[in-house]
């Protein structure tokens, strides 16, 4: 770090001169490689660059939309490279894995040094070492070396430093240090990457995420939790200006035949039961049910509207004056017909071509169940009937979209997240400072040689150091000479 002496010297053990590829040599090189900051920088940047791909190319779309936008051959390349689901490709996952290996190796290689310097540190250093530091000064003080040492130690202790002293014949060496926690923080951050990724993996393998479309009044079985969920109510709140304020569902959990919890969930306020979370995720118009429909009953001959009725979903309603009984039995939002199965279904969830199936009972003799189209009123005709039925409007039933998720790894992820935030914060705001002082006898009193280093925040340290030398001067009773760095 800025090429200054470090308490954790690179462990360059003497190498054997034979250039053989021994296992030890190899494993040392391997650790060296995986613990290197260069690899870390490469990974950081490479992950950053590849992560942009998924933000530019829409992920997990249908093939047609890629072909339409990029052409067929490009799409084939996308498939080959995994660009349509970048974040789950083997190579992207490997990069993340490599980052874990990298930071763990770094921890393995460097943390013991940090630990040692927390426990014990190098006190005795040579005079040249002190003089060679980036921040250094030399002060003469007319006092005995014991007194000066005492006062200096006192000063540093007051400033929150840890002070170690060594009394050698003819000289006293003081060592003051502070802020090693900053380094510990860095290593906490290094471990956190792996913790987060482990939590993520557990979530992927043992958790699930599903989307459920639920209707008011229905009860759904949740097989993964082995309980039932009843949707009591769904509604939307609006702001004064008409925009949606929130949408809400009242849910009741039924476990073992009994109602256990009832809660109204809304966006940003989920229900949690047995580790399964129910989120208010969306809402929409149901595509196979409606609440009411408005029907015009026309006289075929005169083409006059005889009556308009509002029919509720699957409830028979009598129109006595026309001798009719009507009910809506089915609804599709986007009419389509499967000719092999002879079944009507909704092609999409959009209300593109809505149709209802009307059960008509006329004078108890004519019975028919025609499909009536909103957009094509004349399509179906009941021959024996006097009347023509027209669908003039309907109110779709709203469904509530619930996200149902369970993630057993989540607390591990949050643990790792806390580690990363605390770790980086410690390392950003606490910097490791080490100051050595050598007190040597001089003709009148003592000369104090003082030198210090930090691994970052040089200007703050420079200020602190200047204050310190000023303080030293004030300690000396006699005029002193100072030489700053």
């Amino acid at each position, binding site marked *: 770090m800025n090429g200054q002496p470090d308490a954790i010297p690179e462990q360059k053990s003497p190498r054997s001169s034979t250039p053989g590829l021994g296992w030890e040599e190899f494993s040392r090189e391997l650790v060296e490689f995986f613990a290197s900051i260069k690899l870390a*920088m490469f990974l950081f940047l490479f992950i950053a660059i590849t*992560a942009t791909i998924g933000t530019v190319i829409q992920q997990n779309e249908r093939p047609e939309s890629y072909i339409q936008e990029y052409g067929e051959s490009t799409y084939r390349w996308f498939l080959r490279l995994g660009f349509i689901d970048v974040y789950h490709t083997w190579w992207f996952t490997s990069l993340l894995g490599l980052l874990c290996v990298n930071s763990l190796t770094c921890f393995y290689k460097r943390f013991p040094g940090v630990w040692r310097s927390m426990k014990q540190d190098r006190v005795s250093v040579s005079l040249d070492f002190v003089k060679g530091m980036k921040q250094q000064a030399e002060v003469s003080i007319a006092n005995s070396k014991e007194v000066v040492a005492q006062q200096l130690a006192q000063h540093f202790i007051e400033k929150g430093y840890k002070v170690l002293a060594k009394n050698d014949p003819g000289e006293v060496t003081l060592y003051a240090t502070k802020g090693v926690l900053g380094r510990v923080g860095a290593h906490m951050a290094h471990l956190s990457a792996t913790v987060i990724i482990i939590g993520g993996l557990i979530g992927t393998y043992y958790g699930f995420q599903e989307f459920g479309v639920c209707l008011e009044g229905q009860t759904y079985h949740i097989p993964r939790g082995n309980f039932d969920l009843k949707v009591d109510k769904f509604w939307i709140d609006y702001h004064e200006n008409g925009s949606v304020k929130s949408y809400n569902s009242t849910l009741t959990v039924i476990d073992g035949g009994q109602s256990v919890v009832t809660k109204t969930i809304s966006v940003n306020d989920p229900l949690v039961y047995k580790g399964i979370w129910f*989120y208010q995720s969306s809402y929409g118009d149901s595509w196979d049910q409606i609440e009411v429909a408005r029907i015009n009953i026309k006289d075929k001959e005169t083409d006059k509207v005889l009556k308009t009725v509002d029919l509720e979903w699957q409830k028979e309603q009598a129109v006595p004056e026309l001798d009719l009984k009507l009910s809506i039995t089915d609804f599709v939002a986007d009419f389509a017909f499967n000719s092999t199965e002879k079944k009507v279904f909704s092609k999409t969830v959009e209300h593109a071509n809505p149709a209802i199936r009307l059960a008509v009972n006329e004078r108890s003799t004519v019975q028919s169940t025609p499909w009536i189209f909103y957009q094509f009123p004349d399509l179906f005709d009941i021959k024996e009937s006097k009347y023509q039925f027209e669908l003039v409007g309907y109110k779709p039933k709203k469904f509530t979209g619930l996200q149902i998720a369970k993630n057993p790894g989540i607390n591990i992820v949050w643990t790792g997240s806390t580690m990363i935030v605390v770790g980086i914060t410690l390392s950003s705001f606490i910097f490791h400072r080490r100051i050595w002082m050598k007190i040597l006898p001089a003709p009148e009193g003592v000369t104090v040689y003082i030198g210090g280093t930090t691994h970052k925040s040089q200007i703050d340290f420079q200020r602190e150091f200047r204050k310190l030398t000023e303080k030293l001067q004030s300690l000396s009773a006699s005029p002193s000479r100072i030489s700053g760095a």
Partner: protein
Amino acid sequence: MVRSLFLFDMTFWLYLAALTLYIAYLFARRPVMTLAPAGHSADNFDERDGAWATQLGQIATLITVFGWLVNTGALFTRAFERMQTSGTFAPWSNQFEAMAYVSWAIILGYVLLELRYKIKAIGAFVVGIGFIAMGAASLLPYRYQTAEPLVPALNSYWIYIHVSITLTSYAAFAMAGGLGVMYLFKERAERRGSTSRFYAAFPDLETIDELGYKAITIGFPLLAFGIILGAMWANYAWGGYWSWDPKETWSLIVWLIYGAYIHARMTRGWEGHRAAIYAVFGFLMVIFCFWGVNFLLSGLHAYA
């Protein structure tokens, strides 16, 4: 609405005035390159300034502080207006407010920096960025500037902390970007052997470099915290803490870019020139993450 918009407008003009004054300060007549005594380079910038420069510098600082107070007032007023229309108060709920908040945070950071290190020359660059942020906010169409009620997904107490912390980290990176530009200016002048008094007010390269680094070491944990709060919010609102949505991916990208920087600082050769260029590049990425993603890419976050 009108009241806060008036105050935001006033902030804009005050920042413009402050920026002009800081630039004038740089051009003001002062003794050419009186070098401070060794070891005293960081502290005694006032001593280097001549009479004019000193006065200009003082007025610039005053106007900046005043502008910042008006900015604060504008944000509070906006919070109050939000409270009335929709019952939430976070005055950083749309692009316009977010930019006004970022410029507030940049200027606050600058004022603190000036108080601590007494280097006014930085104002020309950093107040400049704060001003540009405020200016870009004012250029947004009116419909973006009003306090529309929040869409349900944003209507949560998480918005208070997640958004403000992320935006504060952007401000720190903006500061580092400004210092990077300043470094490159000064470096070029030195290489050409310029003795222009323009540069006499600049701190030495090492100080600019260190301050830039410091700004990044403040932004880096803030962004990490902001991203994680975002993940917690997502877990609460969407049912998954990470969905690789463009906005969250881009903030991770920005974080990784600065992560590379933090580690690069520890290897030789990554101070000074390279670090300055990198800080400017990083800031451009922040701008993209902040603006570009909202306007160019689609996703769950595109609420502006």
